[in-house]
């Protein structure tokens, strides 16, 4: 029936979940002795940034969200690591080419903006507009949480 509950679930975990994941990946970086060599600044920054995104994706639910799955897949490609995605019993979603997307019913102005959004949100290329909006909401919440965690860390570390 059309009266089914359609509230979108955009809950994100608490800040400490993000913090734990981020600190874990930072400690992994430290184990690789990254922080002691002075001439690899850009490399270090990139590694930290990547660790931030990956830990955010893990904290946000790992493979249970389209954007986090796409992010992890993208990161794993760079590492040549095999990422295992657990088999889930759900309907198969086909990757929709832009010609066949069922969202032509929306105003073309909305679709232009949605196209730009698709480039920003990981994994957005195969999503329909409605799904994209849902994923965007969750993605933004997680991103802002991650930014807060990093800000706290920087504030705690900078000299008084």
């Amino acid at each position, binding site marked *: 029936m059309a009266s089914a509950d359609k509230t979108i679930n955009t809950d994100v975990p608490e800040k400490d979940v993000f913090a734990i994941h981020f600190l874990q990946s930072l400690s992994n970086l430290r184990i690789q002795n990254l922080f002691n060599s002075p001439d690899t600044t850009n490399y270090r920054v990139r590694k930290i940034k990547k660790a931030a995104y990956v830990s955010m994706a893990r904290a946000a639910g790992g493979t249970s969200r389209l954007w986090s799955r796409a992010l992890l897949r993208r990161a794993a490609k760079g590492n040549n690591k095999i990422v295992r995605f657990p088999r889930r019993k759900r309907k198969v979603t086909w990757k929709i080419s832009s010609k066949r997307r069922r969202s032509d019913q929306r105003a073309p102005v*909305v679709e232009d903006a949605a196209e730009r959004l698709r480039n920003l949100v990981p994994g957005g290329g195969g999503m329909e507009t409605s799904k994209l909006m849902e994923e965007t909401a969750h993605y933004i919440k997680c991103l802002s949480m991650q930014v807060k965690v990093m800000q706290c860390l920087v504030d705690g570390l900078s000299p008084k």
Partner: protein
Amino acid sequence: MSNRRSSRQSSSAPRISDDQMIDLVTKLRQILPEIGQRRRSDKVSASKVLQETCNYIRSLNREVDNLSERLSQLLESVDEDSPEAAVIRSLLM
């Protein structure tokens, strides 16, 4: 939803109703930090909301970049005996 004839090649989500779209747009507007609160709620166009969302995501990415940069400098220059090092050690181990 009753109009589920889209079983051939589309995604599993049924066609979204306009109410749902409005609900999503409202949710996004609540998340975005500043969007003209002076506007009446039903007059904000969806495309404007999406535009603001794009800008917000880009600014968040830039924040992450800045913070990574600062973190990198800070983590490199931590002395072994300072209290910050003790904090990090207790957190990371």
